[in-house]
């Protein structure tokens, strides 16, 4: 309901891409199941999920390399399942880039236009334009084996963009890059997408990457759609324990739903009622580490939820420290504390007794 409304809003009345009840089976293996999703024109959309959950299969069905076992795929309102890959106005950037080793950089980029029998002058002009777009203006004559990994990635991007596709598909485009280059490339990709206005669909198993680049994310779990929403929505208001746990760090407290609160073995915590939740339902309170406050004393403010514990472990990460605090039922709760003071390490040590507190709106109640 709430979920469907958000999706409707962003994908628009006439989505560019629509997966309708798509399934894909390889013999005994079911790679994708009951998959329904709309992607709007001009969106930067991410398919996110653990490895093996069917992301690549979904992308390959959109490109035309796999045929769905059931359901239909619509592009601009038309079913494209029967259209062969070379006639789809969709281009793909492959995970291993798949650059043609027997062609130069310019030859690779021009390949798509050559298939359209474009004129020499037009090809030369568009190739130069693409090389400039990926900031490699002088690389046209190079051989592919003379390029670094990052340069290959750009050439693959230019090659996939030259035909001005309706949708650009990117399969783990940054998996082969080192961490620093990956972060730079993410921002470049975002800027490129904004400038061109092309619909991008990116596949990734890296949640930070999806959160950074995408307007909307579809989280997948074993071939099914788990949740689709904007990154902040997915992080702040996950629709299941699985999504909450997959995206970022979270502590889950199991309990029973009461009026404006949840009853757990550790006490009663005030929280907003989940939509459709009934009293006495088994629910879970999801708490993100950075939303918790840690102090030596119980907070005076009676509105805050509070819980005592002892510091069990401290992980120093530079910008912040992650505390694992052991609670009365011996479970651990994660708390993040920004290291804002120049001295770095905060003032709690192992085995210190501390109080964790949070305002009622910082917790999120999950019903499944």
């Amino acid at each position, binding site marked *: 309901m709430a979920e469907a409304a958000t999706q409707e809003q962003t994908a628009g009345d006439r989505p560019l891409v629509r997966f309708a009840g798509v399934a894909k089976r390889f013999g005994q293996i079911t790679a994708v199941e009951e998959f329904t999703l709309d992607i709007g024109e001009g969106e930067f959309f991410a398919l996110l999920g653990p490895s093996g959950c069917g992301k690549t299969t979904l992308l390959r069905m959109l490109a*035309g390399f796999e045929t769905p076992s059931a359901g239909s795929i619509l592009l601009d309102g038309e079913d494209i399942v029967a259209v062969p890959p070379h006639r789809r106005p969709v*281009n793909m950037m492959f995970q291993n880039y*798949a*650059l043609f080793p027997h062609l130069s950089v310019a030859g690779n980029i021009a390949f798509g236009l050559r298939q359209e029998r474009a004129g020499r002058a037009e090809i030369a002009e568009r190739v130069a334009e693409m090389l400039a777009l990926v900031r490699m203006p002088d690389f046209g004559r190079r051989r592919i*084996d003379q390029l670094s990994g990052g340069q290959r990635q750009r050439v693959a991007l230019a090659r996939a963009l030259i035909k001005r596709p309706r949708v650009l598909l990117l399969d783990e485009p940054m998996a082969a890059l080192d961490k620093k280059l990956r972060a730079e490339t993410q921002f470049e990709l975002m800027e490129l997408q904004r400038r061109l206005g092309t619909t991008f669909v990116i596949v990734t198993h890296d949640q930070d990457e999806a959160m950074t680049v995408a307007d909307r994310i579809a989280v997948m779990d074993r071939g099914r759609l788990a949740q689709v929403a904007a990154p902040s929505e997915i992080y702040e208001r996950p629709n299941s324990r699985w999504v909450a746990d997959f995206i970022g760090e979270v502590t889950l407290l199991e309990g029973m739903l009461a009026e404006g609160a949840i009853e757990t073995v550790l006490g009663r915590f005030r929280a907003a009622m989940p939509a459709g939740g009934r009293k006495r339902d088994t629910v879970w309170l999801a708490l993100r580490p950075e939303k918790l406050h840690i102090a030596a004393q119980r907070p005076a403010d009676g509105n805050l939820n509070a819980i005592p514990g002892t510091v069990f472990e401290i992980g120093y990460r530079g910008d912040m420290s992650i505390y694992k605090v052991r609670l009365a039922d011996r479970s651990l709760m994660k708390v993040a504390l920004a290291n804002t003071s120049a001295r770095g390490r905060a003032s709690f040590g192992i085995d210190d007794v501390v109080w964790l507190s949070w305002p009622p709106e910082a917790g999120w109640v999950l019903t499944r």
Partner: protein
Amino acid sequence: MGRRASIFNIVSVTLGLAFLYLPIVILVIYSFNGSRLVTVWGGWSLTWYRALLSDRAMIDAAWTSLRIAALSASAATVLGTCAAVALTRLGRFRGRLLFSGMVYAPLVMPEVITGLSLLLLFVALDVDRGFWTISIAHTTLTMCFVTVIVQSRLVSFDRSLEEAAMDLGCPPLKTFLTVTLPLILPAIAAGWMLAFSLSLDDLVIASFTTGPGATTLPIRIYSEVRLGVKPEINAVCTIMIAVVAVATVVASLASKRGAVRRERAGA
């Protein structure tokens, strides 16, 4: 550790190489022998190469052999490549196992049997034996070698290159011609060279399938040697060794260069 060559290793390697190459080396050296007697050294000379130039029959035989080798190698390359593509790309079609068995059978079939069966076939069909029958027989013999070489390349071929081409608007057949074929060309060239060399030095199958009009070089040499070894034969054989050696080296360089390039391109 015991990685350094021991006396035993050196001796066995030397003996092995000598066993393989001594006869050839002797043959090559004696082709430059100035003496008429095969077993007596008479100083360096090019007499026998000069004599060869005026030996009409020998030159005709060499020319026939080269034409047969070029023709049958080309036919075997086309057919062998098609078979390799069918075996790697068509998935598990009905009768795939039988087909691959049939393609590879000539690899292990005794040449006498291949030759004899082809002879029976040609007799049954009542065709005139000669240039064409030898060419067909050699195509049958060498096709499977081409298939083996091309297939091993296709198995390691990165299919996403073909998918990328199709994704960019290239229809399947054109994809094969503009992406797959150029990339497996070194393997195809190596296959052709191997087929060419095999055809050039085949005696058994050629003897079975030849007719009065067509005498290949090995047949010619063999019939001359039966009347006693003439020094000219040494010269012919030396030239053949050179041709086959060059073909083999070019073929292996071609496929190696392809592999190195592929590796560097990360494909």
